[in-house]
C-alpha cells in the first residue's frame, strides 16, 4: 500500500513472491523495517538487505530477545554504553546501545521487541466480537487514534457509514489525546533540562486534558468510547458547554506554562541545535508525525486523507530546523491548533444519534476485500490494513504505529550529540515501544 499525500490517494500494488526477492532497502531506506518484519514473520528473504536482524523476536525457537549483532565501532578511545531493557523512569522497555567517543555519541542502535504481545496474531481470523478493547491497548497513549483506525476499517468493510455526530465526537477524543500528550511531553522536556515550573504546570495540565476524556466516556484514556458506527457515549449540550469552558481554560494555562520556556534563554540554549534531524534524512527514513513536521515535511493525514464526515485540516503546522527546540515548539503550536479544533467541534456537533443505525451489520465484513485506514494520532500517522478471506474473516490484520517509522529517526538524531542529550531527544520524539512491538 502506498499513499500519495499530495493527491490524497492510496495506491495498492501486489506481486507474487517466492521465498526471496531483491531487497528494496538499499534504494528506499524507509522500507528497512518492513522487510525485516516480512522476513521475521514469513521467512521471505530480502536479498541484499543491509541490516537483516530480528525485529520483535517472536519466534520461541529463534534468538532470544536482544540477542543480535549490534553495530560496533572499534578503537582505543571508543566505548559502548548499553541501556535497558528496563529504564530508569516510569517508561516502557527497550534496549539502546551507544557507541561513544568520550561523551560524544557516534552511533546509537535501538533493539526492541520486549513488548511483543502478539496483537496481530490475535486479530487474525476475527473480527473478534469485541476487537476494540484489544486495539485500544496497541499503544495505550494512542487509544483514540488506534480505535479510530480500527473503526474506520470495520465500517469500510461492512459498508456502514459512521454517524456524523459520532464521527465528530471521535475527532474530539482524538484531539484531546493529542492535547494531553503534547502538553505532557513539553512538560517532560522542561523537566529534563531541570526547568521545573513548566514541568510542574504541564504535568498537571496533561491530567486536565485526560479528565476531559473521562467526562466524555468515564475513562481518562478514551477506553470504551469508540464503537463501530460511532461512539458509545453522547454529549448533551450541558456537557458540551462544560467541556468548552475547560478546553479554553486549559489552553490558556498551557500557553502560560509554555511561554516560560520561550522566555528563558537558559532553557532555549539547551534545546536549540540539539538532536537535529535534517529534512532529507527524515524524508528518506519515512519519518511521520511531529518529528517530520518539525523537520519541514508537511505531512499530516488529517489534511491529506481526511476521514469520512470530517473536514480536512486547514493548516499543517511545520518548522524547519528539526532540532529538539523545533519539535517542542511544533507540538506547542499543534496543541493550540488542536484546542481551537476542539472548540469548533463542540460548537457545531451534527444532530442525530452518536451511533450508526444498522448495528447488526457491522461485524459482517465483505469477503475478499482489503481495507486501509489512516488516522493522524498525536504521534503521527496510524495505519491499519485488513485483508478478508472468502468468509469475511480477517486473513491478515496489520498495524503500523507511527513509532515504527520514527525509531530510526531518533537513532539518527542522536549522532554526534552528547550522551546526556539522549533524554531530551527521546522525549521530543516520545515513541511507543508497545506500538512498535505489537
Amino acid at each position, binding site marked *: 500500500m502506498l499513499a500519495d499525500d499530495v493527491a490524497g490517494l492510496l495506491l495498492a500494488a501486489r506481486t507474487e513472491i517466492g521465498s526471496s526477492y531483491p531487497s528494496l532497502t538499499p534504494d528506499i531506506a524507509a522500507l528497512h523495517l518492513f522487510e525485516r518484519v516480512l522476513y521475521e514473520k514469513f521467512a521471505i528473504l530480502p536479498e541484499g538487505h543491509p541490516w537483516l536482524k530480528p525485529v520483535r523476536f517472536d519466534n520461541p525457537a529463534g534468538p532470544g530477545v536482544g540477542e543480535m549483532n549490534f553495530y560496533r565501532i572499534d578503537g582505543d578511545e571508543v566505548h559502548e554504553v548499553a541501556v535497558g531493557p528496563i529504564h530508569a523512569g*516510569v517508561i*516502557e522497555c527497550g534496549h539502546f546501545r551507544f557507541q561513544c567517543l568520550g561523551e560524544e555519541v557516534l552511533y546509537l542502535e535501538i533493539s526492541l521487541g520486549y513488548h511483543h504481545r502478539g496483537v496481530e496474531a490475535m486479530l487474525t481470523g476475527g473480527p473478534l*466480537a469485541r476487537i476494540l478493547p484489544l486495539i485500544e491497548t496497541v499503544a495505550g497513549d494512542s487509544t483514540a487514534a488506534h480505535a479510530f483506525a480500527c473503526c474506520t476499517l470495520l465500517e469500510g468493510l461492512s459498508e456502514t457509514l459512521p454517524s456524523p455526530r459520532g464521527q465528530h465526537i471521535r475527532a474530539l477524543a482524538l484531539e484531546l489525546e493529542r492535547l494531553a500528550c503534547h502538553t505532557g511531553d513539553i512538560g517532560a522536556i522542561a523537566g529534563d533540562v531541570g526547568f521545573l*515550573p513548566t514541568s510542574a*504546570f504541564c504535568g*498537571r495540565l496533561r491530567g486536565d486534558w485526560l479528565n476531559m476524556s*473521562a467526562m466524555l466516556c468515564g475513562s481518562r484514556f478514551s*477506553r*470504551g468510547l469508540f464503537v463501530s458506527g460511532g461512539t458509545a457515549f453522547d454529549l448533551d449540550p450541558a456537557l458540551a458547554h462544560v467541556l468548552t469552558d475547560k478546553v479554553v481554560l486549559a489552553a490558556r494555562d498551557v500557553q502560560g506554562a509554555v511561554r516560560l520556556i520561550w522566555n528563558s534563554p537558559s532553557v532555549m540554549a539547551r534545546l536549540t541545535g540539539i538532536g537535529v534531524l535534517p529534512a532529507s534524512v527524515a524524508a528518506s527514513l519515512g519519518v511521520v508525525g511531529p518529528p517530520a513536521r518539525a523537520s519541514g515535511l508537511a505531512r499530516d493525514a488529517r489534511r491529506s486523507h481526511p476521514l469520512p464526515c470530517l473536514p480536512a485540516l486547514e493548516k499543517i503546522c511545520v518548522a524547519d530546523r528539526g532540532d529538539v527546540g523545533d519539535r517542542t515548539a511544533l507540538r506547542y503550536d499543534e496543541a493550540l491548533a488542536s484546542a481551537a479544533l476542539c472548540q469548533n467541534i463542540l460548537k457545531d456537533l451534527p444532530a442525530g444519534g452518536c451511533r450508526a443505525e444498522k448495528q447488526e451489520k457491522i461485524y459482517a465484513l465483505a469477503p475478499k476485500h482489503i481495507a486501509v485506514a489512516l488516522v493522524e494520532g498525536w504521534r503521527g500517522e496510524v495505519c491499519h490494513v485488513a485483508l478478508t478471506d472468502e468468509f469475511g474473516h480477517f486473513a491478515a490484520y496489520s498495524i503500523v504505529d507511527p513509532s515504527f517509522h520514527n525509531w530510526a529517526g531518533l537513532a539518527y538524531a542522536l549522532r554526534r550529540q552528547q550522551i546526556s542529550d539522549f533524554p531530551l531527544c527521546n522525549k521530543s520524539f516520545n515513541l511507543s515501544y508497545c506500538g512498535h512491538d505489537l
Partner: protein
Amino acid sequence: MFEIFLERFRQKTRTVAFPASLPALPPRFRGRPFIDADRCAAAGGCCSCVAACPWHAISFENTKPALDMGMCIFCGECACACPQRALVFTTDWRLASTDRDALVVRPAAYASPRQPGGQGAGLRASSGLADDDDERLYVLPELPITSVTSLAAAFARSFRLRQVTAAGCGACEADLNVLGTVVYDMGRFGIDFVASPRHADAIALTGPAPRNMRAALLDCYAAMPAPKVIIAVGACAISGGMFRRVAPPAPDSIQGAPPQCRPALFIPGCPPHPCTTLDAFLRFLDQRTPR
C-alpha cells in the same frame, strides 16, 4: 523570574484534596462493580453478562455470575447486557486488595446507604451505560488490604517503588506517573518512584509479562534488597488481561506476574484510576483513606 511567579500565582495550587476528602470522579467513571442478588435471581440466572464479556472475566459459579476484577477491563459490556440491571458499575474507586480472591465479585444483597454524606454514604452507579436512570446509591464493603504488619511498619514512612513495565500498553504507566505530579503529589506520603531496583522496596508491575520481558523482570526483582514486594497494577499484571494465554506451550503462556514473583497487592483496572492506586498504596501502608 518574575514571570514564573506570576504564572504560579495565576495557576494556583492544584494538588487534589484526596485523600483528605473524597475524590472528584466524573459521573461516567466505571468503578467497582456490584451484582444485586435479588435482581440477578429475578432474571432466572440468565447468562447474558457471561456471554457479553469479551475477556471471560465473568464465569458461572453455581448458576450465579462471578466477576473477576483481576481480569476485567471495566468496559461495561456486561452491565449493558444485563436485562435486570442487576450488574452495575458503581463510582467506587476503591478496587484494590491484598487478597486475590477478594477481587471476585459475587451477587450480594443490596444495602441502602445509612446516612447521606456520612460514613457509609452510598455511591452512584456510573451514568451513561444503561438507558434507564439508576437512582439507587450503593454501599460496598471495603475490600481487605492487610499488609503484613512488619512490612507496613518497615515501609510506613518511606516506600520506594521501582516501576517495571512488562509489556504494558503505556496507560497504566501514564496513570502511575501522574501520581508523581503536583496533582497527586505522592511524595507527601513518603512514596516515590526510584530509578534503581537497589533502592526499591517494591516493584509496581504493569503489563502481562510476555516471554520477552520475563528475564528482565526477574533480574530486576532479584536485584532488590529484602524485604520486597510486588504490586500488580492493572488487569494485565494481575492476570494477563486481554493477553491471557494459559494453554501450553508453557513458554508462551501469558498470565501477568510470573510465579517467581507473586504480587502482594492487586490493583484492578484498565488502567486503574490514580485515586484507585493511591488509595491502595496508602492502605497498604496502614494509612487511612476516606470512606
